[in-house]
């Protein structure tokens, strides 16, 4: 069991008061708070060895290279990768998916080919495939959810065909909270078409539950550092080594080359050929410290804690009259994110009233406008939880919602 009181002491922002009141942070799906150990690891790089990686023949540069690569190894272990060279540093999930778009989809997909994605995707895992359709004539198929926000696996054999080149799917919806059974989906997809690659958007899974890229049996996995206690500006694309060896980089420049001549260039080895220019060194080190923190707590424990908080929040929120929860009511198959609407009050106004008491929630489409349109709902309010969320936070949310209802009564 996670000792929340102890955990919260690790987060300096939770010790501070804003306008004399403590912070009730319920927007971890947008970005998580950072523990002291992550901040310290990055500070240490900047104050003690802030040299460039790979190039310097001097101690602090070698130390920077060692820290940068050691973080890659720990991140690889954290996601169950066989080999840390399969871990590519990017700017975040969006860039990771764009890498697959530019380096794999564009050279490999012809107009008669099909790409499948779901209606519950974040724009990061939707817009690239729409672009492939609009500009390259690839057929885009969308896998719709049931009204409860679940994917029906029995529909798969109608969706995946001999022509399907890629299934791009999220592991966890950032609006519905739905946890998709990736392992089972991949098994069925590979049976229907062994040539179909699977890309998993793990931005909402890697921070909140144990994941294993090998067990999933997928080809690409993308996630961001800042949603899992790490700094902003860095993320990961994991890819199967044999795939990464064959595809070309889409960013060019320093570090990603072995030799450059007037008429030809030989690219560097995997993963370095995908990491052009001076990387976000402190960011990689910070993400390394974040996975250390999460590994020490245990991802099973993190999931258990969030499940408990989610069940409690579902119960608390569903007792508020006029409040409608989007998606499943069962904490077993959903992660710690609850989107909702309050009758007669626009989500913006809900969030504004909550902010008076430092209760932070997100409102709008949460970068998933196609899902909102499919479900025929306007903007929603969204509260999301993490390892530092307490039942007191949920009480503060409920109190704030009642206050908003009073103002707009």
């Amino acid at each position, binding site marked *: 069991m996670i000792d929340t009181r102890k955990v919260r002491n690790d987060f300096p922002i939770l010790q501070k008061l804003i306008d004399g009141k403590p912070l009730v942070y319920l927007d971890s799906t947008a970005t998580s708070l950072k523990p002291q150990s992550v901040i310290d690891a990055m500070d240490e790089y900047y104050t003690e060895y802030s040299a460039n990686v790979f190039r310097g023949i001097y101690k602090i540069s070698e130390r920077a290279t060692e820290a940068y690569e050691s973080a890659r190894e720990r991140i690889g272990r954290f996601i169950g990768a066989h080999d840390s060279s399969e871990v590519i540093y990017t700017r975040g999930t969006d860039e990771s998916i764009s890498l697959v778009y530019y380096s794999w989809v564009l050279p490999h997909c012809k107009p008669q080919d099909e790409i499948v994605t779901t209606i519950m995707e974040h724009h990061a895992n939707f817009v690239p495939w729409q672009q492939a359709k609009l500009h390259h004539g690839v057929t885009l198929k969308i896998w719709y959810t049931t009204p409860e926000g679940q994917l029906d696996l029995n529909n798969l054999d109608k969706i995946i065909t001999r022509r399907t080149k890629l299934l791009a799917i999220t592991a966890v919806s950032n609006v519905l909270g739905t946890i998709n059974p990736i392992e089972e989906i991949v098994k069925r997809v590979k049976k229907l078409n062994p040539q179909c690659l699977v890309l998993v958007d793990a931005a909402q899974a890697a921070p909140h539950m144990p994941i294993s890229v090998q067990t999933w049996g997928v080809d690409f996995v993308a996630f961001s550092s800042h949603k899992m206690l790490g700094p902003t500006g860095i993320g990961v694309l994991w890819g199967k080594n044999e795939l990464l060896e064959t595809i070309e980089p889409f960013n060019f420049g320093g570090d990603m080359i072995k030799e450059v001549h007037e008429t030809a260039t030989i690219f560097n080895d995997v993963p370095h050929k995908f990491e052009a220019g001076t990387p976000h060194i402190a960011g990689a080190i910070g993400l390394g410290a974040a996975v250390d923190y999460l590994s020490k707590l245990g991802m099973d424990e993190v999931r258990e804690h969030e499940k408990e908080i989610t069940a409690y929040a579902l119960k608390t929120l569903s007792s508020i009259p006029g409040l409608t929860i989007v998606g499943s009511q069962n904490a077993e198959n959903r992660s710690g994110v609850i989107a909702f609407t309050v009758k007669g009050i626009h989500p*913006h*106004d809900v969030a*504004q*009233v909550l902010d*008076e008491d430092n209760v932070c929630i997100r409102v*709008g489409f949460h970068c998933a406008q196609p899902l909102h349109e499919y479900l025929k709902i306007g*903007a929603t309010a969204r509260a999301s939880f993490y390892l530092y969320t307490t039942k007191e936070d949920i009480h503060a949310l409920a109190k704030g919602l009642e206050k908003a209802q009073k103002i707009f009564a």
Partner: protein
Amino acid sequence: MDLYREVILDHYKHPRNFGKLHDASATAQAYNATCGDRIIMEVKVNTKGKIEDIRFSGVGCAISQASASMLTEKVKHKSLDSVMKISSRDIMKMLGTTLTPSRIKCATLPLEVLQKAVIAIRPLK
């Protein structure tokens, strides 16, 4: 904080000039993609270049709806020139409340739409 002043809540709950005009001189709309708000403004202009009638419709938060409602009252019978001179600062003054940066867009969306409609009637020189 006094964001939801009585007058704002009143305009939100009982919007003035809400609906459609059957003989509008121009119609304009705008959509705020981050929150899904949509404001539609319809204006009818008389021969003297003054706003004879105005209606707004759409969906949005209390701030954008109240701002639209108050704005329609403010500009009725005013000249197109004076409408084009209204600034976002005037909107803040009209609402009489302090807004955080993320809410300023909500407050100024109706003005943006109205000025779009005016430009449609009388293109900028």
